[in-house]
């Protein structure tokens, strides 16, 4: 079973830690506030996107700084189908994800066919995301700048309707958890499969892999397709969780950067890196907000002083320090120190 395979990679210590972590996550809604539940839901959502982003960089070698594009088109598609045609997301997810994958294939194809790599590819993704954002801004059919709103009532908020994705915040929380877990397990399965070995070969030495007869183009495309597909799934979740979509907030470059931060901080190319990264950055951000609020309320800093920006300033500093001192990401370092996973002789 997929989940058990996950455990096989970990040492005893690793398994215990994972179990504790899972226990905390599963029990969270019972002992914390609605605010923490919503923050954790978003963290899980970002962990899913982080995994998806990780696939593209770690295995297709493509730095994507426009990942919000895949999330966005899928979100809009599913939301539109639901609000205009009444198509429940459980069905709407298929065309939505298909659209995301299609666009991923287009961009991947352009990147490979025209041999665009590195920074140039990153800029290509940014350009596409911005282009689509501006186009959607002008598409009155799906709301344009006015936004696309999904009708939601208080009654909806009590239920647990998975077909229409209308429900209590707890429903979304556990759904996010499930999706995150499935993504993690799915990526691991992919990694251990033949596909995964080809990917690693391509990543380690593309030319040698090509010489050995591996169809580099095809396997890189698979990576892109999986990556954009997972992002698409997350997009559908996002649409029905937030219930309103605006081009600026869905396709904006801050979104794309937000997606990439988790895996980079956690450790690109590793399985647990993106998850760890997401769970470091979000609490860091929230903690800093609390800290700056505390500074003001306890009188250490004059409460009248407007301190917007202090939180992100410190946050940026922390991220910069992580890059300077732990460039491989935090997961590899943590793993080294605390021995969570078995070394694979890699």
């Amino acid at each position, binding site marked *: 079973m997929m989940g058990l395979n996950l455990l096989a990679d970990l040492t005893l210590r690793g398994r215990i830690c994972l179990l504790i972590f899972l226990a905390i996550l599963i029990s969270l809604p019972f002992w914390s506030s609605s605010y923490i539940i919503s923050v954790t839901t978003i963290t899980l959502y970002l962990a899913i996107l982080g995994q998806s982003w990780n696939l593209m960089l770690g295995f297709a070698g493509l730095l994507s700084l426009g990942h919000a594009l895949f999330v966005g088109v899928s979100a809009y598609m599913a939301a539109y189908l639901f609000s205009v045609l009444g198509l429940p997301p459980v069905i709407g997810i298929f065309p939505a994800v298909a659209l995301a994958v299609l666009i991923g294939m287009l961009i991947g194809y352009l990147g490979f066919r025209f041999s665009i790599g*590195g920074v140039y590819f990153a800029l290509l993704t940014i350009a*596409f995301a*911005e*282009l689509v954002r*501006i186009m959607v801004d002008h598409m009155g059919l799906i709301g344009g700048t006015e936004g696309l709103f999904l009708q939601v009532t208080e009654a909806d908020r009590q239920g647990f309707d998975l077909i229409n994705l209308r429900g209590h915040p707890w429903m979304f929380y556990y759904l996010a958890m499930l999706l995150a877990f499935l993504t993690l397990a799915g990526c691991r399965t992919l990694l251990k499969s033949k596909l995964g070995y080809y990917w690693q070969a391509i990543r380690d030495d593309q030319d040698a892999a090509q010489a050995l007869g591996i169809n580099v183009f095809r396997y890189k495309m698979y990576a892109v397709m999986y990556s954009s597909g997972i992002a698409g799934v997350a997009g559908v979740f996002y649409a029905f969780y937030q219930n309103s979509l605006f081009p600026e907030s869905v396709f904006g470059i801050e979104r794309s950067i937000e997606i990439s931060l988790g895996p980079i901080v956690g450790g690109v190319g590793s399985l647990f890196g993106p998850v760890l990264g997401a769970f470091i950055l979000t609490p860091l951000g929230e903690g800093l907000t609390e800290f700056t609020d505390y500074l003001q309320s306890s009188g250490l800093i004059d409460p009248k002083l407007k301190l*917007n920006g202090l939180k*992100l300033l410190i946050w940026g500093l922390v991220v*910069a320090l992580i890059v300077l001192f732990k*460039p491989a990401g935090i997961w590899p370092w943590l793993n080294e120190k605390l021995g969570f996973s078995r070394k694979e002789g890699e």
Partner: protein
Amino acid sequence: MDFWTLANALATGLLTGLVYGLSALGLSVIFGVIRIVNFAHGEIMVMGMFFALIMFRWLGLDPLLSIPLAAAILFVFGYFLQSTVISRVAHLPDHMQFLLLAALAVMIVNACLLIFGPDPQAINISYSFDSFDIGENLIIDKSRAYAAIAAVAISGLLLGFFKYSRTGKAIRACADNYLGAQVVGLKVSHLYALTFGIGAAVLGAAGCVLLLLIEVHPYLAPGYTLLAFVIVIIGGLGSMTGALVGGILIGMSEALAAIIFQPSMKSAFSFGLLILVLLLRPQGLMGKSVK
């Protein structure tokens, strides 16, 4: 479409484009030599803008007069940044460099936020509402004209520096042949730091010039970073004249797109152009084939 409307649009686009070109020069210099993609580009320029703003508010200085000081301060900043921080990530993969500079960008934006607040601030200079009349039908905005002249002057200075001065040639040598430069005895790390300093100084100047045209606020930066990239790619990474040509091209095409289509779509045009260039001619119009 009336001829004179078009002519006026193109003239304005040209002038604005020259200022864009100056800002893109900063990026081009840094990437061309050090091969670092400066994602904090817009932020450094915004620092220059805020500096010019303070000078205007406290001393009543026209932003153009603030240029030497802004350039000097940002030169020191850039030099310091490269030698202590950025040089440490030079060997790391692209995404780590990106993250470091992005984190730096976040820090700069939020420091500006803390100091200046989030609201857009503009200067109201004596000639803010004035224009030059050329002939009967050509109207040139005074602030834009002055800004463009300053941009051309500074660009000229920079090009001259790189072409004729000893240090400039040394820097170009580093860019062309890193190993060779070291063999010959050039102190590469110092030259790199100098280059970053120069790039930052150019951005400081560009910021002062830009304050004549638009209002400044901390969140202005990402848009300009993106714009600079579009220009540099289209003009050709590593080519300084390319940056200027790219700037003019983008300035003029944005102005045309706004007139012919809807103004709210003008950025879409620039991005579309970027995609085309990336696909068909990634070395840009004037760049050497770098892949």
